[in-house]
């Protein structure tokens, strides 16, 4: 396992240098944010999967961290349209494309977890029901 | 006692008050019906299934999708209510803002324990405001140098509106959150410092109404009130001309 850790270490160091370099390249704001966030996300996932052994953990812990991240993102993306884009100019303009875009973004964001949880719940119920069939025929026997 | 207020809702004195009262009535009738059915059903069960009348409970009555029909009924009722009643009214109240030429524009600024109305005067322009000029005599900090502000009218704790015309209110606050609430107009909007929020109302009844603050704003929250006088168009104009202009 030692060389895996050293490899991850090298990757993190290189990524740090890259992200600093990218910030000196004076990209346009949205691109700069995108690059910065993506590099940070890669580094975070490297740390979580290798250093924190997430690769070998049970699914309960994986679901726990997914839920935590999900609720944190809800906080971000639900408040943003209200304060986020209320710049002085477009405050009055309800119909400004930015707010419209964001509202549709949220609608998609809302349907995604609903689908996710729906599928997740469906699989669980199906497995419980199948297990009940198996145990029912011999549980009443005892 | 003032005849505007009774045991149920105060008198409806604005154009959309009727529609809001309608929604209130629909909802309260629905609640009474649902609660009534629940109560009748529960009373029946309490008597019919008391231990002396049914010594052994029924083990099998624990699962039936049919039993969730009341939820479906309430959900359908709510879907209808929101998309066919709620959204139209809410869009009408919030986003159907009148344009200046055909609407009277009034600036209302809330501060700790007083409402200050600001009329643009004949030129229809609001004077520039600067908070460094705020003092007892000049509650809104109007800039004397600015020509647009010369004909502005500032009235504290008295909001005079013409009947039958749509009024566009620019609501703001100086210090903490207050809430512009006139029960008779069925209108409520928080006055948030740092934001200038637009709302509109069309008074349909002449008379004296009351503007209160609905958001806790300090020790004087209970005495923060102003008179709302709805007059005919001529009297409104007469009142406006009689007021002191500018600073």
């Amino acid at each position: 396992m030692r060389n895996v850790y050293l490899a991850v270490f090298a990757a993190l160091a290189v990524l740090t240098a890259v992200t600093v370099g990218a910030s000196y390249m004076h990209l346009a704001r949205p691109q700069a944010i995108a690059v910065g966030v993506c590099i940070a996300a890669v580094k975070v996932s490297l740390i979580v999967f290798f250093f924190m052994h997430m690769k070998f953990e049970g699914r309960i812990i994986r679901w726990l961290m997914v839920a935590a991240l999900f609720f944190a993102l809800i906080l971000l993306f639900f408040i943003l349209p209200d304060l986020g884009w209320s710049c002085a100019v477009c405050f009055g303009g309800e119909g400004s494309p930015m707010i419209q875009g964001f509202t549709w973004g949220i609608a998609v964001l809302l349907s995604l977890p609903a689908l996710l949880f729906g599928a997740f719940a469906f699989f669980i119920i199906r497995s419980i029901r199948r297990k009940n069939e198996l145990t029912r025929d011999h549980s009443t026997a005892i | 006692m003032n005849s505007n207020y009774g045991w149920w809702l105060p008198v409806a004195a604005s154009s959309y008050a009727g529609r809001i009262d309608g929604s209130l009535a629909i909802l309260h009738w629905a609640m009474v019906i649902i609660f009534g059915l629940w109560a009748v059903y529960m009373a029946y069960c309490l008597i019919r299934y008391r231990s002396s009348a049914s010594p052994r409970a029924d083990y099998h009555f624990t699962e039936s999708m049919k039993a969730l029909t009341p939820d479906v009924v309430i959900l359908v009722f709510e879907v209808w209510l929101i998309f066919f009643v709620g959204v139209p009214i809410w869009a009408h109240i919030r986003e159907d803002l009148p344009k200046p030429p055909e609407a009277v524009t009034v600036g209302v600024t809330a501060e700790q324990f007083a409402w200050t109305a600001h009329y643009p005067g004949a030129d229809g322009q609001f004077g520039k405001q600067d908070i460094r000029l705020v003092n007892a005599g000049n509650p809104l900090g109007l800039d004397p140098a600015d020509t647009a502000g010369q004909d502005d009218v500032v009235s504290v704790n008295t909001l005079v509106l013409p009947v039958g015309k749509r009024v566009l209110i620019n609501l703001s606050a100086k210090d903490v959150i207050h809430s512009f609430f006139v029960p008779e107009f069925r209108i409520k909007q928080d006055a948030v410092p740092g934001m200038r929020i637009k709302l509109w109302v069309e008074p349909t009844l002449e008379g004296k109404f009351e503007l209160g603050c609905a958001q806790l704003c300090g020790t004087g929250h209970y005495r923060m009130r102003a008179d709302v006088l709805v007059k005919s168009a001529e009297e409104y104009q007469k009142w406006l001309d009689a007021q002191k202009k500018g600073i």
Partner: protein
Amino acid sequence: MERVETFWSKYVFSLDHKVIGIQYMITSLLFLLFGFSLVLLMRWQLAYPGHPIPLIGRFLPDFIAAGGIMHPAAYNTLGAMHGTIMIFLGIVPLGVGAFGNYILPLQIGARDMAFPRINMLSYWNYFAGGVLMLMSFVLPGGAAQSGWTSYAPLSIVSPGQTVWLIAMTFLITSSLLGSINFIVTTLNLRAPGLTFSRLPLFVWAQFITAIILLFAFPVLQAAAILQLLDRVAGTSFYLPTDLIVGGNILDNAGGGSVLLWQHLFWFLAHPEVYVLLLPAMGIVAEILANGTRKPIFGYKEIAGSFAFIAFLSFIVWAHHMFVSGLKTKLSYLFMTTTMIISVPSVAILTCFLLSLKGASIRYRLPMLFALAFLPLFGIGGLTGLPLGFTPTDVYLHDTYYVIGHFHYVVVTGSMIALMGGIYYWFPKMFGRKMNEKWGHVHFWGTVIAMNGVFFPMFIQGMAGVQRRLYDPTVQAHNLAVQPLNILMTASAFILLLFQIPFIWNFFHSIFKGEKTEENPWQATTLEWACPSPPLPHRNFDKEPVVRRGPYEYSVPGRGEDFWPQDKP
């Protein structure tokens, strides 16, 4: 880890989840009584504004009631502290701390919580937060006076909020430590055979409440720290530029947003109100199943609804902000999510009502409380409809209608269920029964007096009486319904009188109550399988093995009408 058992380690710094449960219970009951007495002062001021407070008026210091007549700032302080104490120091610690700590490990057949030391730390954090909250009355700056919601900028410019914020961080830490304990205990320490589909609904409720607490409370911790810095360190997270307070211009850097506090606060506070509700629903499910001698109707629907409510409660919060300058597009979204969340609540109530059908109802004391919960919580739930629906919320927001709504849900809902829980598990905690006669007196008096206090609030709300008014008679539109205040104040005092038999009954029966054996209610869940009071540090003499579902009552073909989970 047998430590030498001294008085201190046995009763004060105990690691045993049962002792910590009782510590939570007695502390939270005392806080509830204190919070309730604050509201009696407020009710007196509302019924007879400007008249000196009887009896204790003369002794109050001048800044509270000069010459016996209450000062407006004191009224706001009472309002803010009443809300804070009842929610954060009263009902949540009673529902989650006391019942959760005591009953959850017993119901899953565990010897103790997963982390006993963290459990003790959680109680003492709660105790420190409570003491600090009480001391804030006398500390310089006084107690908080901008409502339990402490909206910025009022909470930043008015005195008395700093100690409140520090006490809140203690309470939040206590709740977080508690929720970590509950989640790990429920996941890891269940008795053999106790699968998730055999968990009692009380354990489901506590488990899901712990998950809500885990994800919601840290956000309030962050918001409280930001507000504390705004007050103390001159930052301006919530202060916009150019604020002028009391004639002088605030010299802050500005740029902050007032709505940010409301978003962060309600992101916690809405899941928090479900934290107040879910333990009570868990208790009602237990008592209903036991009282109707029948498996609860729709076990899977109720457990599923708990989980669905928990998930939805995180995307619903801005229905508190419809008139606060929220974008209208967003209010459509939150109106729809509020409608969706009303579905599982109705589903739970329908399942409870349907479990009465085909039952054999025994009208004993806990069952009375559970039955009273159903209609009263029904009123609370239904009156939530006009508040979640924007056109009617425009009129009803921040009026007494809102106060009536949440008191019906929390007081005649959760509080009644928690009292039922006390009567139900008292024999298990102390091996003795509470006096039935005084119990009935307390039940009927409390239910009637509660309705006397809270139902007129709906009428006042429709008349447009705003909330948190020190003296409603100043505004003309409140005069029509002012006589109702006198009725409500009288009912509030009667409610206090009817609590006396409960307090006397509670403490008297601990020592002199009628002795009972280990399963007086003939219930089926695991906590009744161990002796009462359960063995210290071990609970069960031999570890129970679970063989069937939690509510196997009136199984056809069996003599007794209950089949405990662990019996063969």
